[in-house]
Every structure is written in structure tokens, then in C-alpha cells.
């Protein structure tokens, strides 16, 4: 049964010789194939997340969740929702800034794909070596991903500003205020991780985690978790679309597929955000290798998916059990607590980190 490994190794050797001969052609093929595969993975993943959220929230509220449409566990509900969104009439509200209104979901979608390009989606384990599955393996990918994540707020602000609705406008202002309050602590947490890993490359960050950074810097892990929930705009930090106060926030005037696209981007980002959390703090795809032929190849992927599902369920659990903060509480928490604490965490990473890592290496 050792044949599999040899065949895979020879394929990889062939790929490497191809890459060194035609790097530009390789990048083009990688881009096109990667874009097709990843857009499928991200969108199907987001649908799965929508379904998981409705089911888990149903369980938390002692309800069934979707179960009427059919399929086991109401899984056909997703198809029914998609058909509904695609057959709804498309209308633009009166007095809206049409250009910005149309471009808002497109900008949000571009942001999602730009994040997906640099995130490693697992690894394959062949003949004792790990081959990460990532399209753009840049030296600065952690920094790049953080920058692209904040583009989603631009899409949300465009949607809120262009709608010519006071609720949308309030939602947009709140969204930007929330985003800027938590961008800085999140950036400092990523820096603290990068200092411990001595790299900003997400693949190298994962490979350097002999001790998960969630344990090496617990404070940073907590701050990053809160910051990522805020960045994703989920309860308790969904002031930009608080339905009890401002109807639906920045999506109030959106309907049909345009609303569907904005809503879907949020779930895409939820998936990507939890992947980022697993990569930075929970050891990525690292885990014991199952010593079976063929199964050992995909072991890192299995660990990776398990960790992502745990993080997703945690995020949904948080949504199901906490109440929404007021917007002034959110900005206060961000500036007066998270920012100083993230700097404490940075000092921890610089001063205590080397000893910790040397002890566990």
C-alpha cells in the first residue's frame, strides 16, 4: 500500500519542475483553478453555516429549527431559501445613490474572495511532509488577511449610506464606529502571534505552534475572539443591524437577491473568521497523524475541519446566550479595555514568550 505515497510524491515532483519552469503560467492556473474551487468551498461552507446556525439556535431555544421543507434535518430548507431569493423582484429604493447601492454587495463579495485567497484551507500529509493548501502563500499573509477582513465594513457602510434611509444610515455609522474600535486590538493580537511565530506567514504560524498560542497567550486569545466576533458583527456586537432598534440596520432597504448577497457575505466571513482563529491560535491543522495509508494523507484536513466546527458552534452558542450591548458600551469596551489589554498581551509575548516557547519546544 506504499504505492499511493510514491505516486503522490512523483506528482508533486512533477509540479515543482513545472513551477520552476513557468512561474507566471503556474500563478495564472493556480489563480483560476483556486478561484473556482474556493468560491465553491466558501459558498457551500457558508450555506452549511447558515443551516448549522439555525439548527443550533433552535436547540438552544428548545425549538426544532428548520424541519418542514424536507430532507433529513430540514436540509432542503437551504434550497428553498435560495429559490425564494432568486425569484424575488429586484427593486431599488427611491432617492438611493444607485451606483453605490449596486456596488455595495459586489465590494463585500470581493472582500470575501480576497480573504479566501490568502487563507490556508488545510494541508495534505504525504510521505512525512506537510503540503499546505493555500493559493497565495505570501510572506505577509496574516497582515493581508486582516486588511482584507476590514473591507467588509466598507461594503456595509456603502450599503447603509446609499439606501437613503435613516435606519440604514444609523446602522452604517454604528458599523464603522464598531469596526474602528476593535481593529486596533485585533491588529496588536496578530502582531503578538507573529512575534511568537517569528513570521507573518499563516502557514509558518501554524507550523510553529508546538504549543497552541491559545495557551501561550491566553489574554491575546480572549481579545482576538471578542474582536473577531465584533468584526463579523454578530450578537452581542451586532449594533449595525439591531433589529429591535433600527429595523435591519444597513440592510433595511435591501431586498431579494441583493439582501441575500449581503447576508451571505456575513456567513462567508463567519466561516473565514473562524478559520483564521483556528490558524492563529488553535494550531491550525496540527494533530496526531492516523497511521493508515491514504487516510494519513487527509488527517490534517480532518483535524482542521473538526476545529473549525468547534469554533463555529462556539460562535453560535455565544449568539444564542448573550444579549446585545449598547453601542456606547461597545466603543468603551474597545478603547478603554481591549486596547490597553492587547498591549499588555504584546508585552507578555515579548518578555515572557521566549521562555515559554523555549520550555515547550
Amino acid at each position, binding site marked *: 500500500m506504499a504505492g499511493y505515497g510514491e505516486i503522490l510524491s512523483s506528482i508533486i515532483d512533477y*509540479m515543482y519542475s513545472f513551477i*520552476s519552469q513557468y512561474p507566471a503560467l503556474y*500563478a495564472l492556473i*493556480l*489563480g483560476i483553478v*483556486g*478561484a*473556482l474551487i474556493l468560491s465553491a468551498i466558501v459558498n457551500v461552507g457558508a450555506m452549511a453555516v447558515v443551516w448549522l446556525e439555525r439548527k443550533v439556535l433552535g436547540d438552544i431555544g428548545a425549538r426544532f429549527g428548520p424541519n418542514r421543507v424536507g430532507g433529513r434535518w430540514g436540509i432542503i430548507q437551504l434550497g428553498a431559501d435560495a429559490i425564494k431569493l*432568486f*425569484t424575488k*423582484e*429586484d*427593486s*431599488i*429604493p*427611491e*432617492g438611493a445613490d444607485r451606483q453605490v447601492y449596486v456596488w455595495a*454587495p*459586489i465590494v463585500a*463579495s*470581493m*472582500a470575501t*474572495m480576497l480573504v479566501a*485567497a*490568502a487563507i490556508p484551507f488545510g494541508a495534505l500529509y504525504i510521505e512525512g*511532509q506537510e503540503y499546505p493548501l493555500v493559493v*497565495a502563500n*505570501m510572506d*505577509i499573509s496574516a*497582515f493581508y488577511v486582516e486588511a482584507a477582513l476590514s473591507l467588509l465594513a466598507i461594503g456595509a457602510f456603502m450599503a447603509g449610506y446609499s*439606501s*437613503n*434611509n*435613516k435606519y440604514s*444610515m444609523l446602522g452604517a*455609522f454604528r458599523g464603522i*464606529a464598531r469596526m*474602528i*474600535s476593535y*481593529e*486596533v486590538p485585533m*491588529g496588536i493580537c496578530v*502582531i503578538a502571534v*507573529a*512575534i511568537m511565530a*517569528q513570521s507573518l506567514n499563516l502557514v509558518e504560524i501554524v507550523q510553529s505552534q508546538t504549543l497552541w498560542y491559545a495557551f501561550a497567550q491566553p489574554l491575546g486569545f480572549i481579545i482576538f475572539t471578542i474582536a473577531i466576533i465584533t468584526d463579523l458583527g454578530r450578537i452581542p456586537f451586532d449594533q449595525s443591524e439591531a433589529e429591535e432598534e433600527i429595523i435591519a440596520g444597513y440592510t433595511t*432597504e435591501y431586498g*431579494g*437577491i441583493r439582501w441575500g*448577497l449581503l447576508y451571505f457575505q456575513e456567513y462567508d466571513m463567519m466561516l473565514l473568521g473562524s478559520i483564521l482563529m483556528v490558524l492563529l491560535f488553535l494550531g491550525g491543522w496540527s494533530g496526531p497523524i492516523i497511521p493508515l495509508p491514504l487516510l494519513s494523507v487527509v488527517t490534517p484536513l480532518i483535524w482542521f475541519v473538526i476545529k473549525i466546527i468547534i469554533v463555529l458552534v462556539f460562535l453560535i452558542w455565544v449568539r444564542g446566550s448573550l444579549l446585545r450591548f449598547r*453601542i*456606547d458600551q461597545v*466603543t468603551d469596551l474597545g*478603547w*478603554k479595555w481591549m486596547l490597553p489589554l492587547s*498591549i499588555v498581551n*504584546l*508585552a507578555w509575548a*515579548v518578555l515572557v*514568550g521566549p521562555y515559554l516557547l523555549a520550555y515547550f519546544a
Partner: protein
Amino acid sequence: MAAEVPALIYYIPLIIFMIMGAIIPIASLALVKIIAPLRPGRRKISIYEGGLSPIRDARVQYSVQYYLFAIVFVIFDVEVLFLYPWIYVYASKFMESFLVFGSMNIAVFEMLLFIIVLLIGLVYAIKKEALHWV
């Protein structure tokens, strides 16, 4: 064993991904144009404002307090931007030298000093209630 690729090669897929990100919503909008019914009406495009007709323009002037947040954000975001090159240049050397007792890298303490100066600025902004939501 790793393939030697010029670093800038990885920015080509990003452009393709951006185009793909634009294609998905445009394609779904085109599909909606084909299959969805279209019966426009004046009521359908009116703005929702609690059931009443909207009063005045929605693009209101917001409190100036809001812009103070933005200014403080710019200061601290630039701080974060300065920290990134610092990691790349100094932190790795520092990690090696720190374990040898007595030889510390001065750049780390310079950067901590820089952060402390900015933290004093943050305390000042909080005391002046610049970060008070109204």
C-alpha cells in the same frame, strides 16, 4: 524541498480572485433579471420609515464626537502599521539574543517606549472624553 517562486507571483491569483468576487454577485443579479417577475410600482420603491412618509433627507449630519473616534483610530492604526515592520526586522533577532542572558535588543525597548507614549495619548483622549459616545 520547496519550489522556488518569485514572491510577487502570488499577487497574480489575488487579481483573479477579485474578479471572481465581482462575477458571483453580477451573475446572480443577471439570473434574477431573467427569472424574477418585474412589476414596478411607486409604493414598492418608497423608503421605510416606521410606516410614515419619510421626513427630510436621510443623510443626516452626525455629531462631531463621531469624528474624534475616527481621528484617534487613525493615530492607533498607524501605530499598528509601524509595529509590523518592527516584527519583521527586530523581533526575530531579539528572540535569539534574549535567551542569552544580558544581551538585549535596544529596538524592543524603543518600541515599548513608543507604545507607552501613545498610551499616554490614549489616557489623555479618555480623560478629555473624546472617546465618549453621545
